[in-house]
């Protein structure tokens, strides 16, 4: 069981900055994120794109913003549970919360701050009627353990980088690989497109374009698929696995079932005070929340994180008073024993 002061769900810019603000108040943070790396959208969707409205940065790449935020909060030693999605929340008898991920990792904290952005990134699923029936029985949306596919027949659908890369990789593992794409053009790194072309020319893989997978067949396990080609004809091929790779899209996900008030696919919060939700002790900050006049901007998330920490302090230290301190005046004492402070000015008299 992981114990912390503030459990932050979502390791995007707002969640990462909350670690810093909490640290100034001597509160420890732990972050859960469904992605394998911190940074949220900034790292996953547009790391190489510039942002122009971070105060004091005329221009910063989204990926660099993540790096700077991690560096800014590192002396407060945040914990991370990455690659896992927060699934359930239970209020404990002592008033704290127990948050369990999809992989069963348990986290316990008196305060939960949801900084979930657009939600967790889930694979985009094509509209094939009985797709969900074969999930984990031949249908997979991501490749966790390539060994599963050794000497098996695999059909991959998609036209982007991940479809190309896995086609190349699995061509060395699987007994057969068929790549099906709706268009004849592929959009990916030039190198990957050329490799797939070469594999096709050598007859190592089957490339079927333009075509679309239309049906899945089998008993308990998938055994064949049908696809339609441009003239409308349907064809069938036998396969052990079907892997549709159409990228990721964000979904609010299990958080939507936590009993929080939801409006416009976002969590309603009290913006007059501290961005607390309808459940005391659970806050929502950054793009995941909504209130009158809400703007989904990183800089607004930073402000919301700062005010949230003030209220979190009062929940965790009931009855204690808190006075605002300026980092320039008091410096920063890290949880790792480091201290940052303004250099003392030299005092010396002139004779």
């Amino acid at each position, binding site marked *: 069981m992981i114990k912390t002061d503030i459990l932050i769900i979502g390791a995007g810019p707002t969640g990462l900055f909350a670690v810093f603000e909490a640290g100034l108040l001597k509160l420890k943070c732990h972050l859960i994120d469904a992605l394998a790396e911190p940074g949220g959208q900034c790292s996953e969707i547009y790391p190489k794109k510039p942002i122009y409205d971070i105060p004091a940065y005329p221009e910063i790449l989204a990926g660099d913003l993540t790096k700077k935020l991690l560096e800014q909060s590192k002396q407060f030693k945040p914990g991370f549970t990455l690659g896992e999605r927060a699934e359930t929340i239970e209020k404990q008898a002592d008033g704290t919360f127990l948050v369990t991920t999809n992989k069963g990792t348990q986290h316990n904290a008196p305060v939960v701050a949801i900084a979930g952005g657009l939600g967790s990134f889930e694979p985009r699923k094509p*509209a094939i009627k009985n797709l969900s029936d074969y999930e984990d029985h031949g249908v997979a949306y991501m490749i966790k353990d390539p060994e599963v596919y050794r000497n098996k027949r695999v059909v991959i659908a998609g036209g982007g980088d991940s479809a190309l890369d896995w086609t190349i990789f699995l061509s060395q593992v699987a007994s057969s690989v068929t790549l099906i794409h*709706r268009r004849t053009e592929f959009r990916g790194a030039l190198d990957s497109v050329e490799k797939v072309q070469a594999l096709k020319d050598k007859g190592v893989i089957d490339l079927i374009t333009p075509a679309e997978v239309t049906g899945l067949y089998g008993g308990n396990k998938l055994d064949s698929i049908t696809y339609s080609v441009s003239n409308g004809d349907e064809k069938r091929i036998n396969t052990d696995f079907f892997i549709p790779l159409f990228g990721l899209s964000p979904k609010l996900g299990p958080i939507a079932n936590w009993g929080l008030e939801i409006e416009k*696919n*976002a969590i309603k919060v009290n913006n007059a005070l501290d961005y607390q939700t309808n459940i005391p002790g659970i806050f929502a900050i950054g793009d995941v929340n909504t209130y009158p006049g809400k703007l989904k901007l990183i800089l607004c998330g930073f402000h919301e994180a700062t005010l949230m920490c003030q209220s979190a302090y009062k929940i965790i230290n009931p009855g204690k008073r808190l006075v605002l301190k300026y980092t320039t005046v008091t410096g920063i004492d890290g949880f790792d024993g480091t201290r940052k402070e303004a250099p003392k000015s030299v005092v010396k008299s002139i004779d």
Partner: protein
Amino acid sequence: MSLDISIKITDRSGVMHTINAPTDMALNLMEVVRLYELAPDGTIGICGGMAMCASCQCYVQSSHQLSEKTADEEAMLSEAFNVQPNSRLGCQIQINNQMDGLEVELAPEE
């Protein structure tokens, strides 16, 4: 002289809205849909307008000559679902006064 153009947008429930879109606010079609709240927040323009999701996909029904698709838009449309030959990403279509009378239909939510 008015700076607005008239656009017909059919929402996801099939209702057609005739709206005035300003041409002097550097808006794209996705933003116009949001301006008039023709699709709920969180179901359109999810990526913010970077051609990185297909939540603003629409079908162009009139014969207006629109800007060419960029490589980013082509790439997204080649991955998206419910794509038709007349599919475009609304976020990549900048509103200008050549577009008076444009008719589009929003693609279904994925």
